């Protein structure tokens, strides 16, 4: 039996809720993850022996992984019945299983980085411009158009409706833009690839066109739970709505409208109204905060109450944590950002050694974070930046990844180009892309085999180890897509290359960390598939959906943007750069105090300060990046007289 005694009354009510769709408004530190995982565990436990499943959607792999771990601990026997995953990963799964109805084959690839997307878009533009009679405007460049395409995808604009939509919104060049959009989506389809926004857009298309699919999903998934609902953009919301519609009674959504940080990306408080309107959700609030000291809660409440667009009747946070000592809240003023950064670094280093890893530096922008990062590296202290990393950077890893991609998708020219580059960097042998492509078409071979032939032709230029790798060790990969032994051989080979070059060589930057990440992700993905030999295809898919960011080294000090810090907590939070034009941002300041931009900035500040478990230090300077700055208005709103 599950132990409910650790839950408070509100949490328990949420966990045991059985009266139709529910929206849980969970403030920061209110134990929402515990509520979600307990509810999942409780449903699973009570339905033991039945076979329906639970779908729980999150926004990050990290959150999904953590929750999966907790559920497995609570009800190990039932863990196979819960699908705890991200919107993107679930969308990819639906497209693998049913995407053929939209002409996507199940072995589609994911374009995880913008370089690949831009390359594809360039092809599209080139293709359209071949038609001399009707060329695109000259200033149309792939890199500039990509964000527009992304926006259209995220707004779930259909190919049929895009021209009208662009014209109605008075966009310049609406007609050619619409052509590009339609052609780009078609190009994805014919290349059998999907980028992140089209994973969502095509899944929505699938659900819209084929109502039997949603019905089937609801037959399998009797409960739908959503974490961080406030982050859903329009397409994601619609996917959710399609799945929920056949039976909304078991919808369970956890959100905090005060933590919307992605309004620029389509997340919006209006979504709460849609949810309420369409599914008539009941609302339960979890105002208790178990994380922050009472004085921080006071600041947070004072701050957020200034926002207009909040849920009706939203209760202020209630501090649960008892007793506090010392300087829980500090506001420190400096002349210059450099002093500010220096002071923060020193202040952290003056703390007892065991306390240091529990400190974190937060700031609105990466640029501010870098200033502290620089100080840490000057002092020889490791800092940890959790920026998402979509691709490997070191040459051996790039070579491995591109060979695997080529083995999986035999006509992938982007991967060929990457492979040629990495191989050149490592071996100094330049092979032209054209050579490989024409050999492949002449011999009727795939690109990888054609490349191997070209390498073979270089005869004596290739040393013995490389020959072994590319003639012998690669065989199981070529014959039956067995990749794990080959990966080990390639990594060992890479290490030997590195020894030859010496440690300073640029192309081996981050090679060590990336090997760790590789091993970690491999173990992770294999674990997800419970023992089965993961196929190369499946492995690459999961790899594309995962960030290649290395895990935080134990003694490193986290330096995060506020966005990256979402969902986390730290003992001692240093929120730096508390000046106008940083937090709030310059754009929000320009839009004015009542603008939605300003409200989003306020939520940023709210999120940042509520990460703190023991203490909060806020700093500001008169000069930031050589500009004179005023202290942030939010300091004033929190009640500080400066």
């Amino acid at each position, binding site marked *: 039996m599950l132990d409910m005694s650790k839950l408070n009354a509100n949490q328990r009510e949420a966990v045991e809720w059985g009266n139709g769709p529910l929206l849980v408004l969970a403030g920061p530190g209110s134990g929402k993850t515990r509520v979600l995982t307990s509810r999942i565990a409780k449903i699973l436990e009570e339905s033991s022996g039945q*076979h329906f499943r639970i779908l729980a959607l999150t926004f990050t792999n990290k959150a999904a992984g953590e929750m999966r771990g907790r559920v497995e601990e609570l009800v190990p026997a039932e863990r196979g019945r819960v699908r705890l995953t991200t919107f993107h990963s679930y969308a990819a*799964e639906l497209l693998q299983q049913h995407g053929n109805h939209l002409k996507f084959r*199940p072995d589609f690839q994911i374009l995880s980085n913008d370089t690949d997307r831009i390359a594809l878009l360039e092809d599209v533009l080139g293709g359209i411009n071949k038609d001399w009679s009707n060329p695109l405007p000259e200033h149309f460049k792939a890199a500039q158009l990509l964000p527009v395409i992304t926006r259209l995808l995220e707004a779930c604009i259909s190919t049929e409706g895009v021209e009208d939509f662009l014209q109605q919104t008075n966009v310049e060049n609406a007609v050619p833009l619409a052509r590009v959009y339609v052609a780009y989506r078609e190009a994805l389809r014919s290349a059998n690839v999907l980028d992140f926004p089209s994973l969502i857009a095509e899944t929505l298309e699938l659900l819209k066109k084929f109502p*039997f*699919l949603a019905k*089937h999903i609801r*037959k399998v998934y009797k409960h739908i739970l959503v974490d961080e609902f406030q982050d859903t953009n329009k397409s994601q919301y619609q996917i959710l709505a399609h799945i929920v519609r056949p039976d909304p009674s078991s919808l369970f959504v956890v959100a905090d409208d005060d933590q919307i940080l992605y309004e620029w990306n389509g997340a919006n408080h209006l979504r709460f109204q849609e949810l309420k309107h369409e599914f008539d959700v009941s609302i339960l609030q979890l105002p208790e905060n178990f994380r922050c000291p009472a004085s921080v809660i006071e600041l947070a409440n004072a701050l957020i109450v200034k926002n207009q667009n909040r849920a009706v009747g939203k209760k202020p946070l209630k501090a649960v944590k008892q007793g506090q000592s010392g300087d829980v809240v500090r506001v420190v003023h400096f002349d210059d950002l450099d002093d500010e950064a220096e002071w923060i670094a020193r202040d952290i280093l003056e703390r007892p050694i065991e306390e240091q890893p529990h400190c974190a530096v937060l700031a609105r922008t990466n640029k501010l974070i870098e200033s502290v990062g620089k100080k840490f590296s000057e002092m020889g202290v490791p800092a940890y930046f959790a920026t998402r990393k979509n691709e490997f950077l070191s040459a051996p890893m790039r070579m491995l990844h591109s060979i695997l991609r080529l083995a999986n998708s035999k006509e992938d020219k982007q991967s060929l180009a990457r492979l040629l580059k990495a191989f050149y960097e490592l071996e100094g042998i330049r092979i032209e892309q054209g050579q490989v492509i024409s050999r492949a078409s002449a011999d009727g071979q795939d690109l990888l085999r054609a490349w191997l032939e070209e390498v073979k032709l270089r005869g004596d230029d290739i040393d013995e180890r490389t020959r072994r790798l590319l003639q012998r060790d690669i065989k199981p990969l070529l014959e039956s897509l067995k990749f794990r032994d080959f990966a080990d051989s390639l990594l060992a080979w890479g290490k030997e290359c590195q020894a030859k070059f010496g440690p300073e060589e640029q192309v081996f930057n981050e090679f060590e960390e990336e090997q760790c990440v590789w091993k970690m992700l491999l173990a992770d993905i294999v674990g997800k598939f419970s023992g*089965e030999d993961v*196929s190369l295809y499946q492995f690459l898919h999961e790899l594309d959906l995962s960030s290649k960011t290395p895990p935080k080294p134990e003694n490193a000090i986290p330096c995060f943007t506020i966005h990256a810090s979402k969902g986390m907590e730290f003992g001692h939070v240093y929120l730096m750069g508390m000046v106008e034009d940083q937090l709030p941002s310059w754009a929000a300041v320009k839009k004015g105090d009542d603008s939605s931009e300003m409200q989003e900035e306020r939520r940023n500040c709210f999120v940042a300060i509520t990460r703190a478990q023991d203490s909060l230090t806020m700093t500001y300077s008169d000069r930031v990046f050589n500009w004179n700055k005023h202290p942030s208005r939010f300091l004033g709103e929190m009640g500080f007289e400066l």
Partner: protein
Amino acid sequence: MKLKDITINNYRGISSLRIPLDELTVLIGENNAGKSTVLEALRLVLTRGFGSRKDSRFAEYDFHLKDTAATPLTADPIGILLHFSEDHEDDWPEAISQQLSEVIQIDMTNGTNHIWLKATGTYQSVTTLFETRWSFLNTDGAELALKNANTHNLLVKFAPLFFLSAMRDASQEFGQRGQFWNSFLKTIELPPEQLREIEEKLQEVNASVIDANSDLGEVINRIGEVRKFVPLAAPDTVILEAIPTRLFDLTGKVQVHLKAQHGAKLPLHRHGEGTQNLAVLMLFQAFTALNLAEAYAPESTPLLALEEPEAHLHPSAIRSLGTLLKNITGQRLVTSHSGDLVSRVPITSLRRIYKQNGETKIGQISTNLLDARELQAVDYHVKSNKGHYLFSRCWLLVEGESDFHIMQRLLEYLENSQDELSLSILEMSQVRGKGEPFFKIANALGIQWFLMVDGDSAGKDYARRVASHLQPGETTTDRARCWVYGSIEKEFWFNGFQPFIESKVSAASKKDIGEQANGDQTKELNGIIKSAITSCGQKPGFAEALFEEIKSRGNMSIPQSIKDVITRVVQLAGG
């Protein structure tokens, strides 16, 4: 969950074949046509314990070799594809859709669930092994990426296959390891108190039986000397048991006895083979009714593959068995060589496997091929009473009794045994619809056919109907012929047999016929032939007499038109 069809590629004798299945499917066809190959293919795919690539359930001889140059190492991959599907939306229990959701495909027009499971056997030159690869396919036949190997085993759990081969051994089925029997033995459990009591009693009984024979004591001592050579426990090294004294031993030896008509109780294996076979089938019934849900899953639908169940059974027992097959739980796939068995199953459940130009084909009568009255006609004239016709390679369809009897004898005479050719002569003047139902089912089942009719208007009507049942590229003369002189008797009359036929009619009758005809030659001829038939004791007798005459004259005497027909049907039957 129902298995909708099996598609086999490059497996043993079959290069490519798709077999649609019903609740009950009866495979018929000649030896070596591929019936057992189909069952074997099914067994290979639906046996538990796969998932590993290294599993080598396909061996050299399983590869289809398309010509003499082909070897297993170069042969095309073996492919066995099973397609499960719902009959209508929400047909399958939710638990099945839920557990197999990863591989379920949806027909987006009606919401039905489908699963395609494929086993591919290939030779891997790197490992020099024959490997099996398992995959689930989408509606376009592309492989789905699998997250979980368990899906295979789940599928086998929901559609467990029970295989009863032609060589089945009842004593094995009713033995401790019998696939159905053993599940019953396992369920015998008693409270400990009662168990002890029973076992004590058993020991008592044992002791009194053994002690009754004083010689046995000496035997025990002698055998006990083994102790000198190998380490054994003492005392009581040797124990004699007339009956098992522990319950699990006892239940393992539960035996089935059937009381014969004369009242004697005989163990099952002492009964005839046919009775034993039936008992095994009944045991399967009991198993599905009582233990299937526990042994597999409550949602499981058993799939019974039954090879030649007619073996050793009396024809009327076979017909009863045919009726029984219609009512057994689960999906049944049966192979049979028995016309009696076929006579008792719906004609639409038949699948006739045959070879055409070296390719294996499947014939089937779809439910909408015949209307109710045609179906009745086929049932009456073929299936119910002459089920063996459905096993023929070729049908010679004739219009009258004379034709039936004469052609039968002539075929024999020209050394074309009907049995060797697998040819049947069917008389169809009594069949409604001028033989059309016959053309239809013959075409549908892949049976060759040829029609021989009189030259009168009725005959011409038959021939006309043939036109709409020809294969592409054929003309009516490929499938039908009218007698040059109007009927088979006249064919002989005008080809030198006039004196013979006239000799069967008395002078007086001849005179009467001549007077009645009053100069109408046709009428006179018809009258004489009719009278000759009557005087020979009707058509069979006439045919017999005519045949004796032909024999005495030699085969040169057979009219060319008749020889032509025989040549054609022999050709058709030969494929």
